[in-house]
């Protein structure tokens, strides 16, 4: 087991190295940089001053030296400052990460609370009205764009209930009620979207497991339906579901760019997108590598979960 984890971690090194090359390369070939954006905004920075600022920020170094410098900064956990705001990146992450974590957790809870029961009911009552209803909900969730759902939710909350969720972000610790008002709608929209894939996967795997001999045995020995379905069938059907949920969690932690934009939540997605648009290299590079690291770790955690769900699985 430890050997397996170690091997996987070793394999992650070249993946993260290549990801870092891709993101570094992309940022360097983008036309313009944060300084030209700043210059465009202020309009009164001379070429000499610009060259001096570039030298101070070490943007005048050859690309390979810039890359090595950045790698060293990342390894030593000192990713530097934003070119645009001058704020230390660790401080920006400290503000954005809690927003993303809260949104991701709430969306995940709402999504799973909808997906697993509906998926199970859909499977146990295959080809009946509840099954059709569940499948329609699932396919709709996959097809409705989240920016459309988000826009509609705000519009109709305003038209029908004369209520608009408070814009911006209030910390959970400062005002739990206001925080809940700010997070509930975006989390519901995200959760609905996420629930679709999980629901479909739950339905198909539960359907498969319900045909297994041990489930037939469980029925034959007179166990209650709830126990057969939830204890015998569901746990064994969860492996593909965990894979889907793991992938979704990774995407959520990267930041729900669109939902954060619509509901004005200052999470990881918005931070990264704004940094891309303003060519703020250090912020983009740090955020993307952080997310890549999270995704690689999540994949490993998902694989390790398989062994817990199915004790026959052994990692060597």
């Amino acid at each position: 087991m430890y050997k397996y984890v170690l091997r996987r971690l070793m394999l992650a090194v070249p993946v993260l190295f290549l990801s870092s090359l891709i993101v570094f390369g992309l940022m360097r070939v983008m036309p313009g940089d944060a300084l030209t954006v700043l210059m465009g905004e202020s309009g009164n920075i001379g070429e000499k001053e610009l060259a001096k600022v570039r030298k101070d920020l070490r943007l005048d170094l050859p690309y390979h030296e810039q890359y090595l410098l950045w790698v060293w900064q990342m390894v030593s956990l000192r990713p530097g400052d934003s070119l645009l705001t001058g704020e230390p990146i660790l401080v920006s992450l400290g503000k954005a990460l809690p927003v993303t974590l809260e949104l991701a957790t709430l969306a995940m809870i709402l999504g799973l609370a909808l997906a697993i029961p509906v998926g199970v009911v859909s499977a146990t009552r295959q080809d009946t009205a509840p099954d059709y209803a569940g499948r329609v909900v699932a396919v709709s969730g996959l097809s409705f764009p989240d920016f459309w759902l988000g826009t509609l939710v705000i519009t109709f909350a305003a038209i029908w209930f004369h209520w608009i969720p408070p814009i911006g972000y209030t910390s959970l610790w400062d005002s739990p009620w206001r925080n809940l008002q700010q997070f509930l709608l975006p989390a519901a929209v995200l959760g609905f979207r996420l629930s679709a894939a999980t629901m479909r996967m739950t339905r198909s795997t539960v359907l498969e497991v319900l045909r297994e001999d041990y489930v037939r045995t469980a029925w034959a020995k007179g166990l209650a339906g709830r126990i057969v379905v939830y204890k015998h069938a569901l746990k064994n059907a969860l492996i593909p579901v965990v894979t889907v949920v793991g992938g979704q969690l990774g995407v959520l932690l990267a930041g729900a760019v669109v939902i954060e934009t619509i509901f004005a939540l200052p999470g990881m997605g918005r931070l990264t997108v704004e940094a891309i648009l303003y060519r703020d290299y250090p912020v983009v590079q740090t955020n993307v590598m952080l997310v890549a690291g999270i995704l690689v770790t999540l994949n490993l955690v998902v694989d390790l979960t398989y062994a817990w769900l199915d004790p026959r699985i052994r990692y060597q």
Partner: protein
Amino acid sequence: MNGDRGAASMTAAVAPPAVLPAAEASAETISRTRLLWLTLRRKPLGAVSAAVILVIILTALLAGVLAPFDPLETRPDIRLQPPSREHLFGTDDIGRDVLSRIIYGSRISLWVGLLAVGIGTVAGMIVGLVCGYWEGRIDLALQRLMDAVQAIPGLILALAIVSVLTPNTTNAMLAIAIVIIPGNSRIVRGAVLSAKQNRYVEAAEALGCRPLHILVRHILPNVTAPILIIASIWLGNAILIEATLSFLGVGTQPPTPSWGLMLSSTGRAFMEQAPWLAIFPGLAISLAVLAFNLFGDTLRDAWDPKLRRKG
């Protein structure tokens, strides 16, 4: 697919298929089409999705004939008109007919979807074929590269690529294609690894066929079903990503009518005053994505033998 492989293996046992007979290849094509036809007849939802896709294609092709107004014509005197007999989907903030813009918008969505998925599928297929057939170091290197691309969130990667290439429809399409490649390559690689185990591949190798010949004539026909299934599902996703990029302002640029752009530019700004500006483009995107998703499901039902047995 397994069934196809099984049939092909039996053929191989009878006579070494140095070259796959043309008749066999066409019989396989016919049988797949027939399988799809039978599934469409059995599953009305699949038939409806196919019909919706056909309608979208026809709408895109005949946009010039179907659109009641010029999608770019501005008429400030009729700005923000609610849906009426003359303007079925209402008008936007500068008096353009929303229905006409949605009709023309279908061209952008389909164009981006088809080309992005086409490029992404072909590139993913080539990588998957190379990795699956040759394995070894080239497989290890290419798959780590695919892992690295997949470790970057798709939308962020697409945004970064579009920012490098300047935001417009073509570049959004290229960015989507790049995002699609790793997933496709993995599916094709898996299918190739499985197809390679067949005895007819072994026989072809023993007869001295060149790798390219084996790949194209013996392995590729076995992996077309998963490729087509995943491509049809990706079509819906590609439309969604294009709409999202346009929504974020880095996809299609104004005044070109794009469903995502219509939602972001006017849909959000006037959502309380004129909700139809948000409702109709969103419905168009949802309907298109829904149809492609359902059609992808139908293809899978028709061509995946495991599901066929269950059904």
